[in-house]
C-alpha cells in the first residue's frame, strides 16, 4: 500500500516536472533581430521544483487529506438540518425576494456609475440564467449553445435599428420572438436526441450562429460588429445630451435638471430590473402550470409520460422555445447597454458561464440561480486586481463549491401542489 503510494507520488511529481519545466524554465528572449532561448531565473526553477515536491507530498498523503476534505460538508452547519416546511420556506423566500427587490430599486441612486453598469450586466445574466434554467434545470435538456439565442436577440435589435430605425421598445418583443422562433426551428429536429448528443448539436448550433454573424459581412458587418445602437427612450424622451431623433425631447430638459450621464445608466438598469423581475415571475408561474409539471414528468420518466398521453416533442419544444425567448429579451437589453455588438460577445465561453451559473445555483432553483448569477458576474470583477489569476480564482471557487455543496448553492425544492383535506 505504502510502496504503491510512493510510486504513484513519484510518478505524479515527475509528470509535473516534465510539464512545468519546459514551459516555465525557458524563455524566448529577443536579442536584436533573432530570438534566443534562455534559461529562466533561478527563482522560477526553484519554484518549479517546489511545485513538484508539493505534488509529491500531496499524492503521498492524499488519503489523509481527502479524509479531511470529506469532513468539509460536515463543517457546513446547514448541511444536515431537516428541511423546512413548504409554507415557511415560501414565506421566507418571498420576504427575502422583496427585500432584494427593494434594495435593487434604491441601489442605483447610491452607487457609482460603474457599479450600476455592472449591476445591469448582472441583471442580464440573471435573465439568461433563469431562461436556461427552464431548459436545463426544469426540462432536463442540456443546451450548450444557449448563447445563440442571446445573439439572435441582440442582433435582431441591432439590425432592425440600423436598417429600419426601430426603437428599443418595439425591438424588445421582436428580438425575444425572433429568438423564440430560432429556438422552435432548431428544437424541432434536435429534440429527438438525448443527453450528450443533444448537448453536442446545440453546441454546434451556437457556433454556427456566431460564425454566420461573422461571415455575413454585408449584412452584419462581420467581425467589425454593429455600432450606434440606440438607447431606450422613456415616452419619447432621450437620455443623450442632445436629441438625436426628431420629435423626441431630452430627459434632462423636460424635467429641467442638469444633464448627467448617469441618468441613462440608471434608466437602463431599471429596465433590466423590470425585465428580470418579469422573467422570474413568469417562469415561477410556468413551473406550477401544467406545462411545468409536464417538463418535470418528462425529465423524471419519459416512457411513463408518453404512456399517459404527453406529447414529448411538443413539451420539450415549449421549454426550448421559452428559454430562447428570455435569452432574446436579455440580448436586446445587452445590445442597448453596449451600443455596439460583435460576434465576439457571443462565444462559447458565454454559454459555459451561463450554464455554470445554473449548475452553481442549483438546477431548477430560481433563488439559487439568481444568487449564483450575482456571484459569478461580480467575482471576476472583484478579482480584477489579480487580473492574471482571475480565471484561476474562478476555477478554484468552482472546485471548492463542488466539494462543499455539489447540489448547488440552493438546490431546487419543488413547490408541491397540496391536496387539501375535503370536508
Amino acid at each position, binding site marked *: 500500500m505504502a510502496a504503491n503510494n510512493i510510486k504513484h507520488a513519484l510518478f505524479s511529481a515527475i509528470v509535473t516536472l516534465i510539464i512545468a519545466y519546459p514551459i516555465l524554465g525557458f524563455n524566448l528572449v529577443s536579442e536584436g533581430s533573432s530570438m534566443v532561448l534562455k534559461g529562466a531565473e533561478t527563482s522560477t526553477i526553484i519554484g518549479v521544483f517546489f511545485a513538484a515536491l508539493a505534488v509529491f507530498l500531496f499524492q503521498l498523503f492524499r488519503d489523509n487529506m481527502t479524509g479531511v476534505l470529506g469532513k468539509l460538508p460536515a463543517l457546513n452547519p446547514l448541511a444536515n438540518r431537516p428541511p423546512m416546511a413548504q409554507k415557511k420556506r415560501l414565506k421566507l423566500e418571498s420576504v427575502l425576494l422583496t427585500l432584494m427587490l427593494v434594495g435593487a430599486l434604491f441601489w442605483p441612486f447610491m452607487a457609482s456609475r460603474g457599479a450600476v453598469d455592472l449591476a445591469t450586466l448582472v441583471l442580464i445574466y440573471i435573465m439568461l440564467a433563469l431562461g436556461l434554467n427552464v431548459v436545463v434545470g426544469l426540462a432536463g435538456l442540456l443546451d450548450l449553445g444557449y448563447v445563440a439565442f442571446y445573439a439572435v436577440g441582440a442582433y435582431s435589435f441591432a439590425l432592425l435599428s440600423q436598417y429600419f430605425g426601430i426603437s428599443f421598445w418595439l425591438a424588445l418583443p421582436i428580438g425575444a420572438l425572433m429568438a423564440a422562433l430560432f429556438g422552435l426551428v432548431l428544437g424541432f429536429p434536435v429534440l429527438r436526441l438525448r443527453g450528450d448528443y443533444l448537448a453536442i448539436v446545440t453546441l454546434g448550433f451556437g457556433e454556427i450562429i456566431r460564425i454566420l454573424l461573422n461571415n455575413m459581412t454585408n449584412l452584419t458587418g462581420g467581425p467589425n460588429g454593429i455600432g450606434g445602437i440606440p438607447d431606450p427612450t422613456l415616452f419619447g424622451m432621450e437620455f443623450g445630451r442632445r436629441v438625436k431623433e426628431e420629435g423626441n425631447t431630452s430627459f434632462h430638459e423636460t424635467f429641467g435638471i442638469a444633464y448627467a450621464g448617469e441618468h441613462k445608466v440608471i434608466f437602463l438598469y431599471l429596465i433590466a430590473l423590470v425585465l428580470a423581475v418579469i422573467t422570474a415571475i413568469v417562469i415561477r408561474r410556468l413551473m406550477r402550470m*401544467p406545462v411545468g*409539471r409536464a417538463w418535470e414528468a418528462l425529465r423524471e420518466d419519459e416512457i411513463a*409520460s408518453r*404512456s*399517459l398521453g404527453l406529447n414529448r416533442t411538443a413539451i420539450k419544444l415549449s421549454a426550448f422555445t421559452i428559454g430562447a425567448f428570455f435569452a432574446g429579451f436579455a440580448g436586446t437589453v445587452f445590445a442597448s447597454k453596449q451600443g455596439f455588438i460583435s460576434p465576439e460577445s457571443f462565444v462559447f465561453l458565454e454559454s459555459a458561464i451561463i450554464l455554470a451559473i445554473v449548475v452553481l445555483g442549483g438546477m431548477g432553483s430560481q433563488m439559487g440561480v439568481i444568487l449564483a448569477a450575482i456571484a459569478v458576474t461580480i467575482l471576476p470583477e472583484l478579482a480584477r486586481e489579480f487580473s492574471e489569476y482571475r480565471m484561476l480564482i474562478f476555477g478554484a471557487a468552482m472546485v471548492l463549491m463542488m466539494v462543499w455543496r455539489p447540489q448547488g448553492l440552493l438546490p431546487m425544492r419543488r413547490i408541491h*401542489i397540496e*391536496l387539501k383535506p375535503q370536508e
Partner: protein
Amino acid sequence: MLEVKDLSMRFGGLLAVDQVSLNVQEHEILAIIGPNGAGKTTVFNCMSGFYKPTGGKILFEGREIQGKPDFKISRLGMVRTFQHVRLFSQMTVVENLLVAQHRHLNTNLISGLFKTPDYRHREQKSLDRAAYWLDRVGLTDMANREAGNLAYGQQRRLEIARCMVTEPKLLMLDEPAAGLNPAETKDLNQLIISLKEDYNVSVVLIEHDMSLVMGISDRINVISQGRPLASGTPDEIRQNDDVIKAYLGEA
C-alpha cells in the same frame, strides 16, 4: 373494441411475436399468459405504440392504430402500466395524478399565466378527480408525499389510479401483481373487477399469478415462443393439453 390481427414483431433476426391475434370485447377482462420470454410484453408494446409492429393490424374501435405515436394511442383511451413501477418519484402523489390529466387541462400558456376562470375551473376539476381516485385506491393520506417514498404495493395502486384519471376505455396492465403479497393481490383483484363493473373499462392484463388470472379473467389468451397457443375461458385453458405442456414441459 380492440382487435389485433396477425401481429408480428421482428427484431433483426429474432421473430419475437409471430402472427398473434386477439380481440377484446367491451366490458371484458382478457388475460394474456405464457412462459417467460413468450413475447407478451412485446405484444403490449406494439399495442401501446412503443414499438412499431413489423406486420399485422391493430384496430381500436374500428380505427387502425398500428404504428401511431404512443401518446396519440393513449389519448384515444388505451392506457397501460409497466412491469416495473414507473412513477414520477420526485413528484407528490397528487401531482402524479395531475400530470396524467395533462390533456384535460387548459395548457394554453397565456390563460395559465393570467389564471383565467376556465384555467382555474379545469385545474380544480382535475384536483377533484385526483382526490376521488386517491380515495378509491386508499391513498388519500399519502396525497402530499413524494411518490418515491410510498411502499411498493401503494406505488402499484397509484400507478393504476394514474391510468384511471385519464379516463381510459381500455386499461392494459403489465404484471400488476408482481411483487405483491397475497393480501395485496386480493385487493388488486377486487380493484380490477370494480374497474370493469363500476367504470366500464375493459382490461387486458399480463400476469403470472394464476390465482389472479383464473379468478378474474373472462377469457385467456396463451402465447408461447411468440406464437398463439390457445385461447378460451379459464376453464377451457385449465384443461388444454397444449397449455399444460407449455407450462410443465412434456412428460
